[in-house]
């Protein structure tokens, strides 16, 4: 059906899609897990290939067009730039990890579960790959729906209300974005068979007067802000993370959160430079508030998931602030940080899940002394947690360092305030480690056993990634050079 031969990006989208659909029709539940795991791993290999695969057919990286809504000037065009490569790789990487890590979990009606998981992966891939505004919106929504069902079907007891809140939140945001997209579309120039075009080039080259930019900016930004989430729009997040099954929480926090950041870099910065210049203080201010606010709240959390959720808000807010400085340094930092944050937080969830599975609780106050029972787990956790607070030689350090440095170039005072989170992060992380893993063993934690081999392997993989990326982050910079350069030229 596509006029042109299938390229890597299409595989990245369609392989999980097809695999997911197949999953629904697998009879034997025992088969489902292995099948979906296999699928995820294959996807991972494809994305490995995508990193080295260069296509010289088109200037815009890999990609090709299929005239989709011909008379609307919308085409099914996907392509990979540096950021796309990075994030698709993150997506492809996280899913096998998640599947293996939660391999011991058993879900009722597992084929639906894994099918939806794979579908959501396809949606995410689409978001990161599409170079057509309407297509982008398409996948943007499509990534949401499976997750909605996953959360509501396999979540905690308050799942329905919570996930519905989450859905309405994001749905409203994205509808606003839809208006924005259409409006910009109507400003674009003619194409051979339509008087406007949805293609990314058209969108990036469209000229908008500042007054238009100012309100279009918000139409787009609210959608992204909700996904990230930025300070006043964040309340859906902790509840959702708390209520969803951990595997889904990993997807949400590890990958989906990046959709918002990605959207800002991919669409807002190129399209509305004037508006960005106008509102940067506002947005960064909000983000900085969010950083401190979330960190403070994290100190008070008793539920491990909520704690990590709030810490994630803090991290993402920092990334958002860094993006809006439009300083090259900061953006380079954001690129690597998007990856690091994904890895680290997934690691955190895995550990939490392991603890919860064995002790049956996530309440910090009820746990303690896990270190005696499961030293390996503890070591892994400590490493991941320290990476989470950006200790040097872990992956997060490089990113945060550069982001802060960039932010400092933008404004010393924002940085000074935002950097307080370094301390607060240490406070809540160490509290958590101390209360959960150190101290005396109690009745709950007495049942803890050392983690199984495959869990060790997965956590090991994560830890190794953390260190490799922390000691030698250069490859990431090389990967995303082009994107950052392209963005920066618009703000020179």
């Amino acid at each position, binding site marked *: 059906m596509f006029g042109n031969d299938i390229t890597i990006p299409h595989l990245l989208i369609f392989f999980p899609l097809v695999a997911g659909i197949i999953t629904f029709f697998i009879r034997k539940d025992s088969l489902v897990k292995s099948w979906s795991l296999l699928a995820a791993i294959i996807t991972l290999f494809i994305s490995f290939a995508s990193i080295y695969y260069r296509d010289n057919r088109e200037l815009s990286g890999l990609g090709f067009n299929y005239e989709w809504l011909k008379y609307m000037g919308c085409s099914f065009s996907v392509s990979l730039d540096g950021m796309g490569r990075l994030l698709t790789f993150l997506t492809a990487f996280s899913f096998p990890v998640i599947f293996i890590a939660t391999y011991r979990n058993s879900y009722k009606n597992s084929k639906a579960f894994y099918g939806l998981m794979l579908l959501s992966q396809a949606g995410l891939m689409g978001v990161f790959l599409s170079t057509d505004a309407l297509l982008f919106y398409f996948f943007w929504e499509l990534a949401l729906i499976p997750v909605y069902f996953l959360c509501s079907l396999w979540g905690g007891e308050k799942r329905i209300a919570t996930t519905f809140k989450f859905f309405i939140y994001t749905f409203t945001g994205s509808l606003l974005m839809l208006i924005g997209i259409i409006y910009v579309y109507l400003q674009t120039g003619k194409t051979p068979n339509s008087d406007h075009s949805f293609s990314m080039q058209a969108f990036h080259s469209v000229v908008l007067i500042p007054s238009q930019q100012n309100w279009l900016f918000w139409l787009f930004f609210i959608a992204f802000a909700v996904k990230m989430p930025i300070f006043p729009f964040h309340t859906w997040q902790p509840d959702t993370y708390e209520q969803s099954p951990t595997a889904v929480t990993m997807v949400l926090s590890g990958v989906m959160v990046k959709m918002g950041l990605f959207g800002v870099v991919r669409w807002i910065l190129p399209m509305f430079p004037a508006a960005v210049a106008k509102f940067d203080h506002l947005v960064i201010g909000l983000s900085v508030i969010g950083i401190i606010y979330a960190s*403070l709240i994290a*100190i008070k959390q008793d539920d491990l998931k909520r704690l990590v959720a709030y810490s994630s808000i803090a991290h993402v807010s920092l990334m958002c602030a860094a993006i809006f400085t439009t300083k090259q340094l900061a953006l380079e930092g954001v690129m690597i940080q998007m990856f690091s944050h994904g890895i680290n937080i997934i690691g955190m969830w895995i550990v939490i899940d392991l603890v919860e599975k064995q002790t049956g609780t996530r309440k910090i106050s009820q746990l303690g002394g896990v270190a005696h029972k499961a030293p390996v787990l503890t070591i892994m956790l400590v490493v991941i947690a320290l990476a989470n607070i950006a200790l040097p030689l872990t992956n997060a350090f490089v990113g945060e360092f550069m982001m802060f440095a960039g932010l*400092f*170039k933008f404004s010393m005072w924002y940085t000074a305030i935002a950097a307080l989170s370094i301390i607060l992060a240490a406070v809540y992380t*160490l509290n958590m480690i101390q209360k959960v893993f*150190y101290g005396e063993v109690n009745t709950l934690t007495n049942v803890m056993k050392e983690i199984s081999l495959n869990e060790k392997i997965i956590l090991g993989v994560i830890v190794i990634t953390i260190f490799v990326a922390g000691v030698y982050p*250069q490859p990431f910079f090389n990967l995303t050079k082009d994107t950052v350069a392209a963005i920066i030229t618009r703000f020179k």
Partner: protein
Amino acid sequence: MNDTTQIVWLIPFLPLIGFLINGLGRNNLSKTLTGLIGSGVILASFLVSVFVFFSVKGGNTQVVHYFDFINTTSIKVGFDFQIDQLSSLFLLIITGVGFLIHAYSTSYMHDESPKDFAKYFSFLNLFVFSMLLLVMGANYVIMFIGWEGVGLCSYLLIGYWFKNNDYNNAAKKAFIMNRIGDLGFLLAVFWLLAKLGTADYHQVFTNTPKLTSFDITGITLLLFVGATGKSAQIPLYTWLPDAMAGPTPVSALIHAATMVTAGIYMIARSNILFTMAPATQAVVAIVGLATAVLAATIALKQNDIKKVLAYSTVSQLGYMFLGLGVGAYTGAVFHVMTHAFFKALLFLGAGSVIHAMGGEQDMRNMGGLKKYMSITHITFLLGCLAIAGMPPFSGFFSKDEILAGAFAKNPVYWIIGFLTAFMTAFYMFRLYAMTFLGKFRGTPDQEHHLHESPAAITFPLIILAILAVIGGWIGIPEVFMHGGHRLEAFLEPIFAQSNIIAAKQDISHTTEYMLMGISVAGALIALLYAWNKFSKYQKSGQEETGLGKVLANKWYVDELYGSLIVKPIQSLATFCNNVMEKSIIDGFVNGVGKAVNYSSRQIRLLQSGQVGTYVLLMVFGILILFIIQLFL
């Protein structure tokens, strides 16, 4: 001489190897093997350091580039090592003292299970590794890596016995206090990056003219904040005494040899910046002095042997900062070295005492150990003399140099410094006397167990004792011997720039003699007074009162912080969590939903089910439309 460049990477690498081996193989390594590996690697890197030192002494200083840590169009941070006089000197101290402490630990920690033993050594190695990174880094980023690294290791080591919650709290406190300092350090680095676009020492120091005085003051102040964190100065010193929770060798390592000197090293390293910022220097000097006095006063009333030593460390560090503040960089570094010797000695001695006393740390239950453990006693005495600044022990020279510098800057500094020295001598010999003199005050079975520690413990003590005695002789002041100050000559290139900017004003020999005389005399008086006061110390039940109580409670600083900083933050967090989050923001969001529901319930009443009403509403609609269309 390229050979140094080829081997210099070994210095940090060996401890790292040790860490990995011990860390990964902790389940199946025997204790002896662990001990051997643990201390062996340090010894090895010590030897390399010696080699490097001499090659540097031969005038071969260089920056060794390994790989690009961060290399983008906007910033370049190389993974580089800088080998010059300052770093090589510190390398010696760290690896040397570090090795002794490792050796000491092999016996001191022998009661631990093999697992924990291995864990302990791996942490120690990691600690040394990060300290070496800190010292060898050729730019502030690498330094920061080590900087945070030592913080982490101190956290791990202090909380080594993680069953005990107080220990964990102490560890946490240490880490967070350090983080506060690190924040300052980071901001300073960002500032440099923002202004100069680089963090390499060489480029920074050569480009100082590009910086406005405001920049420099700001940067140096922030750097100093970092230093206060690491080197336990006011206001961030409180973690250090608590850090005694860790095993004694750890305390020795952290407080004597390595971690705490990081701040000194950093400031000495960036001395140009500080010299260019007189305001900051003043701050440094005053803070240093204040810390010195405060810590000394507190030390007067402590009964825990390790606590006394800890506060003495703080106070000694205060001295060093005073030195830095008044521009006597050499003196500061010099004091770092000598202090490393005698403080390590004292801690290890104390450790041996505690070992003998079976974990007892309260001096009131000791006394008269002289006859039980002679080696420990002798070495400890030497240490005390050294720290008290008795000529010709090492402490004398370094302290005197700092005081001289202080006097040159401002006599008031000197007076306070002198007072501190006086107190130092007093509480050190109070400690000595209460521990070793008089008669034993502990329980009978403790007395029964008393014994001299094994060789693995006494050997380092002896070495350190020797160093504590002769260590000062590389820095004999001009007045005694021309060209006697070899250290100064050695470090000259490091501080050359500063000396050009602020030529250190010399003071006449007569005054110098006088100063020495006074300080020595004062110290001697204090010494003798303490000696005969506490040699016949008896346990007395009565509570401390008045000032004594205040001192015993460390001026209530912890309580102060608790109510001024911790509580407000906690309550703010609670406010955010309970009010802001739940009521205001979430309340608003849910409010929207409620509003929709409510209005739905109201609007639905329009649907009254009666044709009359429907038509009526329709007619109103018609009217409105007509009016709009026809008259508007």
